[in-house]
């Protein structure tokens, strides 16, 4: 540097060096102190938004079980966010030991990056979905608009609250559930099905970016007549915003939402946590894990081990799966319906 020879240059330069050194030391030290101490085993579970309450309970139960089983202490850290954003963080290097996301396609994306090995979906029972859920309607007390089935959503004057399928995993299940009903109603007439789904989204005055944003819009801001929601979210909203204000309407047909779980192979092999991470996911299928899931209004994959009073809130209805020929699995449905220029994008094309 050219002007360094001058007085200011020298003095300032020296001080600057000292400042820079001091700063980098501070950064180093604090980074050290904030980073976890690995005296005990730590697991990081990267999950989507609506599972907070579930995993708060389950993590405590698992820690107790693991202590009894192996004598080791295990702490589970949680990270919650939109399912797609969480998957991206893992792809970009967030060191999750396990992922418990909303959509198979999000874990497929991680698989594509190589951090999860192929065939993860068959490694655990039930398509690696220890609990499932479905999409139901939350309506205002007394159901003033008389909403009982998917066809009622597009009646004149009905406003539907649902998040944006482009940004929310739950919203994609909403969309698919509506599609499944329409497919049956219109006997597979693709044009009519599309017209119905398009009509449905024309009844949506707001598209929040996440499922919980929609719940707030509906329950707190009092917008809309019906909220399309995860079954567990509908119950939770009732508890949080007053049981007397809302009613849950279970439509006769809906979608079987399978939020999958997987061990992130790249992380557990690097950190040596494979054993405990696998036990963690397997424990979701245990009697205790299944009961905790049911308590939080997820549908357990083994109904027979769950206390009957917990099952009462989860009535039997016809559930269409994503692997049904009308969708052909996530690998086909994701680009076809929600990809750039897919069916959902066409709904909003002007002049349609």
């Amino acid at each position, binding site marked *: *540097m050219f002007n360094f020879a001058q007085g200011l240059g020298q003095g300032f330069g020296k001080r600057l060096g000292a400042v820079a050194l001091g700063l980098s030391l501070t950064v180093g030290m604090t980074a050290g102190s904030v980073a976890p101490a690995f005296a005990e085993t730590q697991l990081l579970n990267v999950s989507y938004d609506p599972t907070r309450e579930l995993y708060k309970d389950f993590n405590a139960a698992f820690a107790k079980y693991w202590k009894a089983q192996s004598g080791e202490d295990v702490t589970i850290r949680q990270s919650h966010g939109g399912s797609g954003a969480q998957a*991206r963080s893992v792809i970009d290097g967030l060191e999750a030991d396990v992922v418990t996301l909303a959509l198979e396609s999000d874990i497929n994306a991680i698989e594509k990056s190589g951090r999860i090995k192929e065939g993860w979906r068959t490694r655990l029972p039930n398509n690696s979905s220890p609990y499932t859920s479905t999409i139901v309607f939350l309506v205002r007390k007394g159901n003033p608009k008389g909403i009982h089935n998917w066809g009622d959503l597009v009646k004149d004057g009905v406003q539907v609250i649902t998040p944006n399928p482009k940004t929310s995993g739950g919203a994609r299940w909403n969309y698919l559930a509506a599609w499944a009903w329409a497919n049956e109603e219109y006997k597979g007439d693709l044009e009519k099905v599309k017209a119905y789904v398009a009509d449905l989204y024309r009844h949506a005055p707001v598209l929040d*970016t996440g499922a919980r944003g929609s719940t707030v819009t509906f329950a707190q801001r009092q917008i809309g007549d019906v909220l399309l929601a995860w079954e567990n979210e509908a119950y939770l909203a009732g508890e949080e915003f007053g049981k007397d204000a809302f009613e849950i309407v279970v439509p006769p047909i809906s979608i079987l939402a399978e939020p999958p779980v997987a061990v992130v192979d790249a992380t557990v092999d690097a950190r040596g946590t494979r054993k405990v991470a696998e036990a963690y996911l397997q424990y979701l299928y245990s009697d205790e894990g299944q009961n905790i899931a049911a308590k939080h209004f997820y549908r357990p994959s083994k109904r027979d081990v769950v206390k009957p009073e917990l099952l009462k809130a989860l009535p039997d209805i016809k559930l269409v799966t994503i692997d049904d020929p009308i969708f052909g699995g996530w690998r086909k449905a994701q680009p076809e319906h*929600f990809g750039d220029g897919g069916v959902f994008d066409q709904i909003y094309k*002007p002049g349609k």
Partner: protein
Amino acid sequence: MTNIAAAAPARWRLKQPSIIPGFGLTLGFSLAYLSLIILIPVAGLFWRSAELGWAGFFAILGDERTLRALYVSFGTALAAALVNVVFGTLVAWMLSRYSFPGRKLIDAMVDLPFALPTAVAGIALTTLYAPQGWIGSLFMPFRIAFTPLGIVIALVFIGLPFVVRTVQPVMEEIDREIEEAAATLGANRFQTIRRVLLPGLMPAILTGFALAFARGVGEYGSVIFIAGNIPYVSEIAPLLIVIRLEEFNYAGATAIATIMLIISFLMLLVINLIQAWSRRRYGNA
């Protein structure tokens, strides 16, 4: 850094001669820091969007949905910046010229939009301007939240401090004698403000406008709560970026970001050039 200084041959000068020291050091440090923090990461962004190639890039640029989102983003940011220019200047005037109860408190509060997390701002504004909210219910059946107007509201909130805080210091620096001289020479108050004060304030107002506008174009956190996010109507360009990311389409996301960046950069550059020109023309302040 050295080559900047070394690359100054006798005829072509990088800088005018000056006895003040520290040019090489301060400029060198600024450029190094700027490069590390801003330029290299942003170059990575450009590089990533270059994966698309020109054809892919223009396909995104020509897509009606992208154009519409850009229109919404730039349009609402422009409207909000204009509102802020008028009212922000008024507030700055009020704070620097008048004394009234609570002036200090209001002066302090002007900076809050910087401090409040944008998501909180969005939630608070939506609560107020939603059809059931304190303010929103006053305007029913005319809807504010969940329309483009809601976006403007959020951006006015986000951009206000930029205008007030760039105009206010300059206003406080203005010599009262100039106004008195104008008045002595027979100008009425309106003429004094318009002909004497405003030209001096113009560069600061312009800067405030540019910053408020630039900030508004990219704002995401507060807008998504109040916008409604309906494609072609109230979908902003940053939301479109997030949507592309959700599709794991990094190239598409960075392409939209690049387009926004280039437009914003050009607009800021034009405004800064106008400013530099007016500074040369009218001298210092």
